[in-house]
């Protein structure tokens, strides 16, 4: 069965027809060709497909496309502002928090959401905030460093 839906992705409105059984991940990658969001397991365990649904991080492989009707989605392609990297993107580059890069889009959105709800997280809160995002390359060290530094940058720009 097919459904006509309306959704906003990275600020852009879309009117599309989706199939009942297609996930939001499928809709993003195969219909909208926003391939930044990755598929690592298709069962909600690895976090590579993390996107923000109305600001909250979700595994897009566990959300049906039709559930996104009327909602706002942010993917990795929507984090930079007119080519200017978001603080967490910038610190991940500078501190070496990306290696193969396949978990990176999901990590970025989980970290972004964490910093939105908790602008000054502790070390443990950062690690707990990333627990749903598996990374096999970095050992998480530089990712945690990058989130801490992004929090500092955001605080600094908020107070200046």
């Amino acid at each position, binding site marked *: 069965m097919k459904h006509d839906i309306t959704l906003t992705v990275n600020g852009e409105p879309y009117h599309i027809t989706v199939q009942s059984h297609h996930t939001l991940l499928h809709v993003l990658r195969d219909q909208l060709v926003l391939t*930044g969001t990755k598929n*690592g397991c298709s*069962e909600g365990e690895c976090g590579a497909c993390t996107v923000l649904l109305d600001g909250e991080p979700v595994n897009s492989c566990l959300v049906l496309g039709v559930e996104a009707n009327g909602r706002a989605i942010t993917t990795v392609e929507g984090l930079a502002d007119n080519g200017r990297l978001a603080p967490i993107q910038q610190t*991940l580059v500078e501190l*070496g928090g990306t290696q193969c890069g396949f978990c990176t889009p999901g990590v970025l959105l989980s970290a972004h959401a964490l910093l939105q709800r908790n602008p000054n997280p502790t070390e443990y809160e950062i690690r707990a905030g990333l627990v749903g995002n*598996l990374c096999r*390359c970095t*050992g998480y060290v530089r990712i945690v460093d990058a989130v801490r530094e992004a929090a500092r940058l955001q605080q600094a720009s908020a107070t200046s």
Partner: protein
Amino acid sequence: MTIQKTTIVGQSFPRVESNAKVTGAAQYVDDMQFGANLLYGKLKRSTVAHGWIKRIDTSKAKALPGVRVVVTGQDYPGLTGLYLSDRPTFAVDRVRFIGEPVAGVAADTPELAEQACELIEIEYEDLPGVFDPEFGASAEAPLLHPDLMDYACAPFIFRQPGTNISNHFKVRKGDMDAGWAEADQIFEHTYYVPHVQHVPLETHAAVAQVDGNGKITLWSASQSPFAQRNLIAKSLGISHSRLRVITPYIGGGFGAKAGVSMEGACVIMALQAKGRPVKLVMSRAEEFYTTFVRQGLTAKIKMGMTADGRITAMQNTYYWDAGAYTEYGVNITRAAGYSSTGPYFVPNVHADSLCVYTNHPIGGAMRGFGMPEIHWAIEQHIDRMAERMGLDPVQVRLLNCLKEGQETVTGMIMHPTGLSQCISKAAEAIGWDKPSKPSGPGKRRGKGIAAMWKAPAMPPNPGSSSTIRFNEDGTCLVNIGGVDMGQGALTIAAQLAAEGLGVPISDVRVNTVDTDYSPYEWQTVASRLTWSMGNAILRAAGEAKQQIIEMVAEVWGENPQDLDIIEGNVVSYATEESVPLKNIVVYGMQKPDGTWAGGPVVGKGRFMPTYVTPLDAETGQGPRAVVHFTTGAQAVEVEIDEETGEVQVINLVSAYDVGKAINPDMVRTQMEGGAVQGMSTALLESIILRNGKPMNPSFTDYRIATAIDAPVSMENIIVEVPQDDGPYGARGIGEHAMVPTAPAIANAVRAAVGVAIDSMPITSEKVWAGMRNDKQ
């Protein structure tokens, strides 16, 4: 070697491709767009561990509308393999592991492909299986490959006729009787390592398409585009020039994407697809047991030691649980043989490293290539002996570890190495001599250390090449055949090229691999790119630089010796003249008389080690077994919860001799990532196999370390004892970073609670049970 002054080498530049990776712009195979014509492939897999295929009926699948291709082993019966051609792309007559491809389908949608696979009917007749390598090596075991001796095979692999042993690497060195007689204590013990999986976040992915001229293009998430071209072309009996392999960014490899696994099946389906592209992507479950896994190991170690801690003799037997096909695994067995003592000087050695066929998933290359497995045994054994003798584990290692000029186990003379420094520095950084203080009641702490060595495991003559071309604006393109799977090859290539040319790194672009346009590289494995490909890049840069300088010298009427390139300008030390590279590197330069010099600058470079020698089949001895060894050590502090047995890694120190850190921060990120992967395998990971059936092929049941599991703190120490033939003295570090982690943790657990764990992983249950037994 002379110390060269560098401006770019030795600096920690961020990765050259980072921006693409943090914005979602980096394209991986599954991200590439092939249009509405794309077919989706799916493999029908064996459900039995060992059996005859009595009947395959594909008629229902073929009849399903939207199904375009159905192939079986009867269509393409050729065998393939990197060192031993023992593996069919699709099973013919017989299946040897659960998950083995028996048929392949390509259809208009993934749903149809799945449905078509279910419609293929296969009838098997079960055969008795081999599920333990020691049994598999015995005379009682059923033969899994009766045709073993007929397979094409590399000359340094020693098959045993009439057995399941596809390689037997022997070491017979010194006088064992004398070695045992000299020992004050002899201790023998057996250790086990389960199968684990690499778990790259991107599963294997491939797309293949045949054009109207019969040219096949394979887009592949591969560490080995050239080896894939070679092996697939040979298995299909087609010319290498008919196959083109393109590898964009890849989402991790760790050895899983070395050689060929499912890519051949994708090409075979494309050959039947009438020009339509066919995509094949592994599910996570398929990734866990149908591509490559790390082999299991049963290791028997017998060691003699004098009262003052000197190792007098070692007798080691390694039974490798190599799986159904050992095309790659045979060389892991060999690597374990020529490294069989660990990084120690041992005068008397009797070692047998046996590659044994079992009805388990296919063992392949995984980060460390046999070294994490044998070091799990050796490095625990040393500690247990030291304890029996009342000796300090650090001192025993410092006494026995290989020093420059000593003979290795195969009779090769050890090159300059910083191994002693690594052991000392790791011990110092962990506070070896200071007591550990638990964080509270009910907790106990301990420290452990382990040393390591590893050589690039490869044929004697794997080649690298590189070309450098300039653009009009003075920027340049570096072409390589090596793959950046996350380790940073593109950045290291850019730094070496920039340093060699004398241009800013921002003026250098490095291309990903396309075998039609990139120069040859054997494979991205063995931690060999920085060293081998790095040499080729430096030579290409040197040739390009020479072309530029000779042109300018001719035009200026100067001696080329007086010219140099600094930050993208040719400068003369004699006349202080200067000219930017812009324009002259493509258009040449006009001479005072109005004529021209130069032309488009193209530098080319190649490198291949030429000095590795064969080893004797009966003794394992020979002058030069390998190109070199990277050495190092890790020290850890753990805290154990007495109630639960849970092990937490508090502090983890890594120290490795990398020769020269081209990019120190990227060396440290290799150390960190490797240490956490090592920790994850040590504490959490195991593919549970029951009669060949994988019981936990999902992230729910096969857990890998998360951000919370990672050590509380980590320290990374870079030691630099230069490699004589490395670029600026560099040697590899990618794999080594996880080699000593598991035994270091095991040694720390023993120090903390007195529980010895013979069998990986060190689960809370095992530690808890061990503590309980102690109390009884």
